[in-house]
């Protein structure tokens, strides 16, 4: 079946079998292997991408369900050589060890920062419930997300920062 997506800002089209999961389409057909598969039960969140701006588990979305939609993966965050603020904060706060959960964790955090303000420690933990990390113990991850929230809030006239749902 013919599938058209906008992935990280670029139009892509191709033919997919209806049973293809979005994560497999991204990784195999489009070569975007930043998005990981960590489980078979929709539990781990390693496959998290943005679908029309909202975090979803791409292992639990059929590629055909995303037809015509915008998909953002971890590859779409950095601006050239400049890391996205969350990527930089994960680096600064030791929010990763093996890194397997990190792409999904960051994409979930992008969505969280857009949708739920203000954020405190408990709200970040709750917001990242769908993402499991086997290595870090979460402390650094929560700190990284809070650091980005704080720096966005501090930016004068930051329109996106005060948006609450």
């Amino acid at each position, binding site marked *: *079946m013919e599938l058209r997506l906008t992935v990280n800002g670029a139009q892509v089209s191709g033919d997919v*079998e*209806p*049973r*293809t*999961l979005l994560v*497999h389409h991204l990784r195999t057909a489009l070569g975007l292997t930043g998005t990981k598969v960590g489980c*078979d*039960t*929709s*539990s781990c*969140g390693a496959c*998290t991408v943005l*679908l029309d701006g*909202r*975090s*979803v*588990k791409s*292992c*639990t*979305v*059929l590629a*055909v*369900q995303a037809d015509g939609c915008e998909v953002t993966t971890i590859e779409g965050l950095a601006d050239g050589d400049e890391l996205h603020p969350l990527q930089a904060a994960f680096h600064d706060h030791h929010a990763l060890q093996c890194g397997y959960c990190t792409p999904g964790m960051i994409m*979930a955090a992008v*969505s*969280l920062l857009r*949708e739920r303000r203000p954020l405190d420690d408990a709200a970040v*933990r*709750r*917001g*990242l*419930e*769908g*993402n499991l990390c086997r290595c870090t113990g979460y402390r650094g991850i929560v700190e990284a997300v809070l650091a980005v929230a704080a720096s966005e809030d501090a930016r004068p006239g930051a329109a996106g920062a005060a948006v609450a*749902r």
Partner: protein
Amino acid sequence: MIPAPFAYERAASVEDAVARLARHGEDAKVLAGGHSLIPLLRLRFARPSVLVDIGRVPGLDGVRDDGELSIGAMTRYCDVEASPLVAEHAPLLAAAAAEVGDEQVRHRGTIGGSICHGDPASDVAAALLALGATVVVRGPGGERRIALEEFFVGFLETAIARDEILVEVRVPVTSAPWAFEKFNRRAQDWAIVGCAVLAGSEPRVALVNMATTPRRAPLVEEALARGASAREAADLASEGTEPPSDANASAQFRRHLASVLVRRALERASR
């Protein structure tokens, strides 16, 4: 795992979806948010030959107030949770929606899918039972309304016919005190047991995961109507239930949890 092959069709309208279901018969399944169905397809517990996707049908999502709340079947949990109308007129439902899975699941799963799947562990189903909701389904013979109470028939079995689509959930508006309690061991998990309470002059109490279907707790409600205390009423929470025993909890532990959660919810709702 990858699902077994199936054909995929995108419905343009409710009528179109109904016609496609009628044409394909037993082998077709409706696809909404996919967050119950796709996990089943991946495990190959379900092997439909055709999926009819209702995700793009215009007019199936959103919340309106027409005296009751009218919630479109395709309204996603996150939008139920964020709706000012739901917050004002049925806050119990917003609270239940906020407890489902995790953010990613709430971005995809729909209120209609949660009901049609017929899972006894559905959080919103219990809230909607306590709220006295009705569902509107449309099929080849037109539209019918079914009290949610009569909708759940057995484990993953409902009163909807194979060629019918649930289009709308209707919820009476209420300002009665309420509470939702959910017990699980890990944040994103399903309820081991949960309960929804709508207090007020005729209290209604519904249980998550205490039987083969979401269900009310009539003995608790009757005891409250007689003037029993929260504790006395809550002691009756597991009467008549058939809770499952599984890796998360024994039936006996679930019975205990039901009484504790119902008591907590009743106390919270009466504060």
